[in-house]
């Protein structure tokens, strides 16, 4: 042990990192656990035990919120994984204007989510929006994208995919580019088609990239808030409320303790889903 004391770097180097971690992560986490058990007005608080959790779980909107959050995360994640893979494979092959197409795909990611949300809610206006007027020109009677309670959530999810597909594609491009060319050459010598190349080389060997996309897209979907708020504010009624928008509404109403309890629930929920998913996915990874 004594020999280990002679070391190059002092522990003092850890102080800045620890301070950041303590002030911005540990302290708020512990405090939010505490405040979730209080009725809090930001200046005064009464300790009320688990009442906030009871209230939060008895909210009618909450069951809608849980269901919507899962649907939203699954739809956006699934579409990003599949479309991202296809786009990634396409954009690593030898196509004309490859670089131009890559930047086109990535461009929506650079836009502000709120701006995208407002723009699309105008495009999706049931009678005057560009989408439905175009459909009408083709003789199709377009639905009320954001007003129809059955499809409003999916409309927002599609916009999320449009906006987020760029990141997924870039991750796939990186993963696919890292696959050594020798595998493809070997397949060619054995007489495999390009479909075979995709099915037996590209898909299995881009598993690490796919896993990153799944994790990022799924967690992103679970805690998504900004887009839905810009497009529907959880409406009509409560039909597109996600857990995050329910929590935000509680904050808006000034129920700070209750909203904090909601955040603790969201944190636990995301952890319960994300960690097992991560472990399951990393088990089957192939290292190149």
């Amino acid at each position: 042990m004594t020999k280990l004391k002679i070391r190059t770097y002092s522990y003092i180097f850890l102080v800045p990192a620890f301070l950041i971690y303590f002030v911005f992560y540990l302290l708020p986490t512990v405090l939010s656990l505490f405040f979730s058990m209080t009725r809090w007005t930001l200046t005064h608080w009464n300790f009320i035990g688990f009442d906030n959790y009871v209230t939060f779980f008895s909210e009618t909107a909450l069951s809608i919120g849980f269901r919507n959050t899962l649907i939203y995360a699954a739809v956006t994640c699934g579409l990003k994984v599949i479309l991202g893979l296809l786009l990634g494979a396409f954009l690593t092959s030898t196509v004309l204007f490859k670089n131009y197409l890559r930047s086109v795909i990535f461009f929506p990611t650079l836009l502000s989510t709120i701006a995208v949300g407002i723009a699309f809610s105008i495009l999706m206006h049931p009678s005057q929006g560009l989408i439905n007027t175009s459909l009408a020109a083709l003789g199709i009677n377009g639905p009320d994208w954001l007003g129809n309670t059955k499809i409003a959530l999916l409309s927002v999810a599609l916009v999320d995919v449009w906006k987020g597909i760029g990141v997924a594609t870039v991750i796939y491009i990186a993963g696919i580019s890292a696959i050594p060319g020798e595998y493809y050459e070997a397949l060619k010598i054995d007489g495999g088609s390009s479909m075979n190349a995709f099915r037996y080389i590209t898909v299995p060997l881009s598993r690490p990239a796919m896993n990153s996309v799944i994790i990022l897209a799924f967690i992103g979907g679970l805690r998504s808030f900004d887009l839905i708020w810009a497009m529907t504010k959880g409406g009509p009624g409560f039909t597109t409320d996600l857990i995050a928008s329910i929590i935000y509404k509680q904050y808006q109403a000034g129920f700070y303790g209750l909203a904090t309890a909601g955040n603790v629930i969201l944190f636990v929920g995301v952890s319960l889903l994300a960690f097992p998913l991560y472990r399951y996915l990393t088990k089957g990874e192939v290292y190149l």
Partner: protein
Amino acid sequence: MNRTTGRALTFVTSVIMIVALLAGCGSGSGSGNNSPTTKNNTGDTNSKTNVKTEATNAPVEKTTLTLMVGNTGTTLDALKAVGTEAEKKLNITIEYDIKPDGTEGDNLVKTRLATGDMSDLLVYNTGSLLKAVNPVENFLDVTNETFMADVLDSFKTVVTVDGKVYGAPVGSSSAGAILYNKKVYGELGLTVPQTWSEFMANNEKIKAAGKTAVIASYKDTWTSQLFVLGDYYNLQAQVPNFADDYTNNKAKYATTPQALRSFEKTEEPFKAGYMNKDFLATTYDVALKMLADGSGVHYPMLTSALDSILQNSPDKINDIGVFPIPGDSADVNGLTVWMPSGLYINKNSKKVEAAKKFMEYFVSKEGQAIFASKVKAAGPNVIKGIELPDDAYEGVKEMQKYFDEGKTSPALEFVSPVKGPNLENLTVAVGSGIISAQKGAEDYDKDILKQAQQLNLPGW
């Protein structure tokens, strides 16, 4: 390198890193900082420059006050007109700090108050929403100011908390009622309905004539609440104790049939198919346009909307009339009245005296005249001696009748501190057929429970 230099280097590097870290925090998290000495909002930078000018140039004692006000309607323009005069008369410059309205604005006000970041003056709701922002700790008590003497008691009660008065009125009173297009009424030979069933019969005729009978603008969710909130005259006429029982956790919307009726009134026009197409995508401004050009005939709304109609379609303003939300019997027919917003002084402002001077000027006859030149009254005024002008809106003249006969009642939010924050989402859900009136009322009762507990009211 020997060990001591190594240690010294380690130490120095660490210190530099920590300092850099803290400096980074300082500029990054300024808005979250609540200690008054390091406050970094626009108002404060101004006061600093003012201190400098005062020191170097003593005779020019110009004070800059910040005033936070919502962005809907014409209140801001009218306040600016008063502010320009105040600058000449009192040497007070007002800087406007514009906030959104509705729950988003409430959220901002609560946060700014809690973090000690509030502007010197604030225009904010009266009644229950005022009680939710803890006026005793945040606003200056103006009970004994001489300029408050002319303010009517009906207004004072809605800005009074624990026996102390906190605000001055901004604008006139208004009513939550049904705005209707008189021209179309004339064309179709309709008369103002006295009961709900007459109202529905009118709707049927309007629909048959190919027009929208009831305009709904649920894209702006707050506009969906009027059939509930504006129905309070009918509710209190039939259940006189409702406000008290409701505040004391004894009466509920879902179990009081007359109160549940308000939610049913939200539901019925949708069920009967009287509402405009795309009502979920329709905004407040579009709704007012529909009403003005006669393609829509009824719009349940606050009469302060008349002012926006004047702005957008000035030639149509006298086509618009006002009648109360009808009850089930013709004997009960009166207006639910909204008190104007209040002007409050931030208790912790460093410029309280200047703020008081501005408030005094604002409620004076002169200040009110300037204000009224920009915003025409949407109902009777609440300051003694300020009469409705002869060129008042046609709709406002129709309201006067109910005031003269004493058939008015303040809205529930002025007689009870409890108003559930989710009402607008629930009325959208009920008004677009997503949930039933019964379910909407039950959910609203739960929403009220949370608000009452947050306010720490006894009996909840």
